């Protein structure tokens, strides 16, 4: 199978965003994943999100590691640079790229194997640095490209296609990210575009590390009876704890959110996330309480979803390192070299 470009045929009546671009302009090459793969739905949600936010395509940077999920960065925003790196190491590429140019929007797409096994270290340290990016985990509990081994997110008792039962406890990326201090933590389901799109939009606009763990059933290796990450099981055990609306800065707020039911949070760029339909007793701004409830849900075999935790006022990587507003890669060389005049002073120490 080689590279397949999508034909650029446009229907004249396709809706356009403020840049005059249609959703088609945010697509990439043709997906080569299995028909019905949850990942393709996530790709669609990313396309919808970028179109909705009217991002300049060239300002979107797409990063990934290795695995089915990591292939998907080729399937959206063809006008943005993509970097399909090595297995589990996407966060380091994102870190370097972000350090060089803070002005772009960084979207990382990873899988449960890529993030929670081979890439667990880099995932954790990207959070510690509060790297400004949106990190999406397309979580299906299984290694697809190597044909069905359990991943580290597989639940105890879940059954592989060939009948093997998993006995090792899973690593939950949401709880892990919250433990490590990630300022934006969400969970969603590939089949719930309505919930997912505002989360992606908010995650892209949020300054600092934003993670969305998206349950994304594998139709080929993990969609059978006995699996806890199948479509059927996920739909059944899916519980929206906090839904969110994303309202970009400068857009008029039209929806009516009555007090008590909703909680607006203003982001650094002036846009807002309005948390709504919050489950009774759930406080998405209280990290410790939220973690307790997520864990309580897990014990009942329920996946709490939505905007699970939103911290405030976090300082991202550049702030933490006293770096300038200006992208490092745009500083002219003349401002970077001490020049020959400084050399005498520098060498004095070595005489």
């Amino acid at each position, binding site marked *: *199978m*080689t*590279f397949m*470009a999508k034909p650029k045929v446009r229907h004249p009546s396709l809706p356009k965003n403020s840049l005059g671009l249609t959703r088609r302009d945010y697509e990439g*090459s043709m997906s080569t994943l299995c028909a019905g793969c949850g990942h393709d739905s996530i790709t669609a949600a990313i396309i919808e999100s970028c179109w909705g936010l009217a991002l*300049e*395509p*060239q*300002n979107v*940077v797409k990063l990934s590691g290795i695995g089915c999920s990591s292939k998907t*960065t*080729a399937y959206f925003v*063809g*006008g*943005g*640079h*993509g*970097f*399909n*790196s*090595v297995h589990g*190491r996407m*966060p*380091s*590429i*994102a*870190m*370097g*790229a*972000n*350090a*060089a*140019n803070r002005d*772009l929007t960084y979207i990382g797409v990873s899988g449960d194997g890529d993030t929670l096994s081979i890439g667990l*270290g*880099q995932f*954790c*340290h990207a959070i510690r*640095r509060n790297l400004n990016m949106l990190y999406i985990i397309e979580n299906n509990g299984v290694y697809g490209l190597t044909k069905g081994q359990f991943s580290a997110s597989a639940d105890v008792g879940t059954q592989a296609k060939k009948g093997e039962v998993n006995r090792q406890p899973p690593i939950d990326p949401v709880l892990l990210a919250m433990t490590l201090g990630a300022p934006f933590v969400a969970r969603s389901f590939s089949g719930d575009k309505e919930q997912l799109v505002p989360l992606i939009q908010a995650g892209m606009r949020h300054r600092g590390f934003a993670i969305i763990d998206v349950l994304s059933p594998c139709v080929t290796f993990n969609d059978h009876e006995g699996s806890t990450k199948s479509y059927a099981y996920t739909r059944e055990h899916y519980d929206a704890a906090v839904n969110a609306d994303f309202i970009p800065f400068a857009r008029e707020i039209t929806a009516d959110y009555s007090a008590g039911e909703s909680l607006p949070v203003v982001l650094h760029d002036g846009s807002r996330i309005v948390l709504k339909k919050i489950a009774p007793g759930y406080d998405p701004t209280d990290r410790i309480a939220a973690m307790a409830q997520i864990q309580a849900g897990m014990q009942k075999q329920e996946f709490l979803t939505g905007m699970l935790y939103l911290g405030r006022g976090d300082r991202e990587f550049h702030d933490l*390192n*006293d*770096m*300038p*507003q200006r992208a*490092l*890669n745009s*500083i002219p*060389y003349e*401002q*970077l*070299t*001490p*020049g*020959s005049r*400084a*050399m005498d002073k*520098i*060498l004095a120490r*070595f*005489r």
Partner: protein
Amino acid sequence: MQDRTNDFAIKIATVNGTGSASANTLLMKSIFRSGIPVMGKNYFPSNIQGLPTWYEIRVSHKGYVARSGNIDLMVAMNAETYARDVREVTSGGYLLYDSTWPRPTVFNRTDVTLLGVPLAQLCNESFDGLRTRILMKNICYAGVLAALLDLDLARIRELLAETYAKKQKLIDSNMRAIDLGYDYARKHFACPLPIKVAKLSQTAHHIMIDGNTAAGLGCVYAGATVAAWYPITPSTSLMDAFKGFADKWRVDPATGKKNFAFIQAEDELAAIGMVLGAAWNGARSFTATSGPGISLMGEFIGLAYYAEIPAVIFDIQRVGPSTGMPTRTQQCDVMSAAYASHGDTRHVLLLPRDPEECFYFARDAFDLAERLQTPVMVLSDLDIGMNDWMCPDLKWDDSYQPDRGKVLAVDEIAKLEKFYRYLDPDGDGIPYRTLPGAHPKGAYFTRGSGHNQHGGYTEDSVEYQIVLDRLVEKFNTAKTLVPKPVIDANPRVEIGLVAYGSSDGAVREARDMLQAQGIMTNYMRVRAFPFGEEVEQFLEQHRLLFIIDQNRDAQMRSLLTLETRVEKAKLRSLLHYSGLPISSEFIVTGVLAEVGTRARVVGVGA
């Protein structure tokens, strides 16, 4: 012993963590400031406190910088290593020891003059506090040496004043310790010894600097903005130096913001990933590591080679295999660096000989990495990186402009019908690249998986091979861009010495020693891989070639055998892999063992 003014070596055996480093630096710098060429080498343990450590000072009016292989005076301060320290003194030499406590007489040698000084006793009588007494004992031996070697006390006082700046108390106590030793030696021994210094004027316009500091400074001058690393001996001081210089020279005076990113990574895999991410995004970025780090970075180095991303990696080599001896020197990463990563990969290597070249090669490494869109590794070693070497003043040419390579500007992309990442429009094997954020037409997908010359994913044999074959063309272009070898050759001489990196000083001295015995040699110092035509020619022109490696397996000889047309049969190896820097004597002995008297005949009149 005959007069050996400005031509001797001393070695100081101490315990690490006792302040001997200050005493040794003081001695070396006072000699340097008296205008006499000097070299200091530190042999230290992988430990913070309590293990044996040695410092060797070579004084040479001829400017020789290598270990000679001889020790004319041993300062045996460490009872634990006393026996071997006594053994190491060259016949006719001297042994200075602390005579406060008796030393086993069984180790005494009749051919070595013993100089006993009750250092501990002197210091215990003059100073209070355990720690102070230990520290001052070491300063005290510097005072003894000052008398024995006829060092300038005014220079020592000047250095102490600079070191301790406004702490007058420290200056006074240190000077008191110096005087204690100095006076004792003058009273009890015939000072100075035949090994002594006398003022010269050969160090003007020179500095004493270590290679890691010089390389770190080179990165600042070259305009590197993203530095990512994981601590590992002996590379760490390179990053410390970069940060130190950048904190001073890279901070925006108006905003106080740092025009650089300095990222301590979670491991070497992340460090190189960050370097690649930054370079891909248009920043000059680098990392520093040692052998184990190169092993860990292997996968990403292969990605950078295949996806054609610039990267600058400093490998400060240490003794392997595995963890090896982290504080000892070797040139043992030649092969693992040249072919780092799985699959068909070959990498550009720069091989600096000393701190001066570390500085200039740092600059060249960024230019080459961006011109060639590939990783460039600078193979330094612990000897270069962590020891102070005398070098000519570093100079910066303000007309220098970084070579950012074939990066398309926004207006150039806009004019294109369509951008393809991996074409070779110029016939030099180097494609054009674009930076993220420039223009939607410039977008492409970077991948380590099979790709065609248009940048698309492929599993097609022909498409795959087109890209892989072009990478060979690019490597051939690299041969013409990398630093050329330094060759000193007489066409009538048939014996060639080939060396690289920190072996240079020992080779140059060895050639003089061989010449004094009537053996003429030619010399090529290889400064980079891939090897260019000059290397091929030198190898071709000699009947017998000695390849000098500081590793067990003759890695440079292997690389030359694999990558040039040279006949294997005429290659000989001189292999030094003790962990100490190679000495001139080792090379002389090795050459003599092979060429015997036949070469003398060849050498006559040559």
